[in-house]
């Protein structure tokens, strides 16, 4: 079984919601900055941004 989907990065507003993982985490001060960082990361990694609706975005390679 080959792993086809992979979380490349996490863009979070709240440090409490993430942690204990090997994935790079980027913290943003507000939603505007979060959107910007997430978009940049998605373009660079050719991934897709998904919103977990708790102030955390993940960038996933599909």
């Amino acid at each position: 079984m080959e792993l086809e989907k992979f979380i490349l990065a996490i863009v979070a507003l709240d440090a409490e919601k993430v942690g204990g993982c090997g994935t790079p985490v980027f913290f943003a001060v507000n939603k505007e900055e979060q959107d910007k960082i997430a978009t940049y990361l998605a373009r660079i990694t050719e991934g897709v941004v998904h919103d977990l609706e708790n102030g955390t975005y993940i960038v996933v390679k599909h």
Partner: protein
Amino acid sequence: MQAMFTGVFTGFFIRYLLLKRDHRQYPSYPHGVMSHLALAFIAAVIGSIAIPALMEKEFTAVTFLALAATQFREVRSMERTMLEGLDKTGLISRGPDYIEGIARVFEARNYLVMFTSLIVGGVTYWGNIFYGLLVGAVAFLISRRLMSGTVIGQIARVREGKVSFDGPNLFVDGIHFMNLGTDKVREEYMERALGVIIEPFDDNARATLANNGQRMAIAHDSAALLGVYKDVDTAEFTPIVRRDLDTGRVGMVIVPIEKDIELLIEAVKRVPVLESSLSTPLKTSIGRKASD
């Protein structure tokens, strides 16, 4: 001699007519067409000499037919390898099922050419060139009928679906597609995206549409015809085809370059039903009982 020429000519001509230079079926470049015509010529020659050679008691000629069959299996793997290679660099991939389907068609059409040439060659040998050509024309009509498969429009109703968001989740007529982050992407979707709903007519169609390869083919053909608002680094605009588990409906969301729902519906209707995904549960007694 006359038998052979008539056979070769008809076989070759039929292959030319069947070689649809359609970008959905084939990346149409002149050299690809050339190589297939050359193969068709060989097939036609082998087919047309078979019966005259047998009549002259040259039984070794029959072994050539077997040899040819092996050769044409190569055609299939050649097409498959090439299309698989191209699939990696295309924006929207065809998927293995579609590729296999195209490769199989190329192989089968060579056999068709060989068979037509065989019959035409034989008829011309016994009768005359007039009968030969007549049989060739009939063979062409039959082969065209046999080789034209069904399309999505024949097994399902295709209509427009409404694209909407619930929070970050993208829906088309209640079918959930995916979760999309960032407002900008969602705005682009609301502005540009088109949604279609494909409603299967019966359980056979429902099972066929459930096949992932079939769904990839629908996405690929739609994107090829209407263009796709996507580059390698914007994976979120990849067309997606998802299934409504309760009803078996299939929905597609696509961000086309040409935003025209009528054309999109027409494009989806014309997507071929893949041989490998064609499913017929209604032909079995269990399937029929399960459907009511």
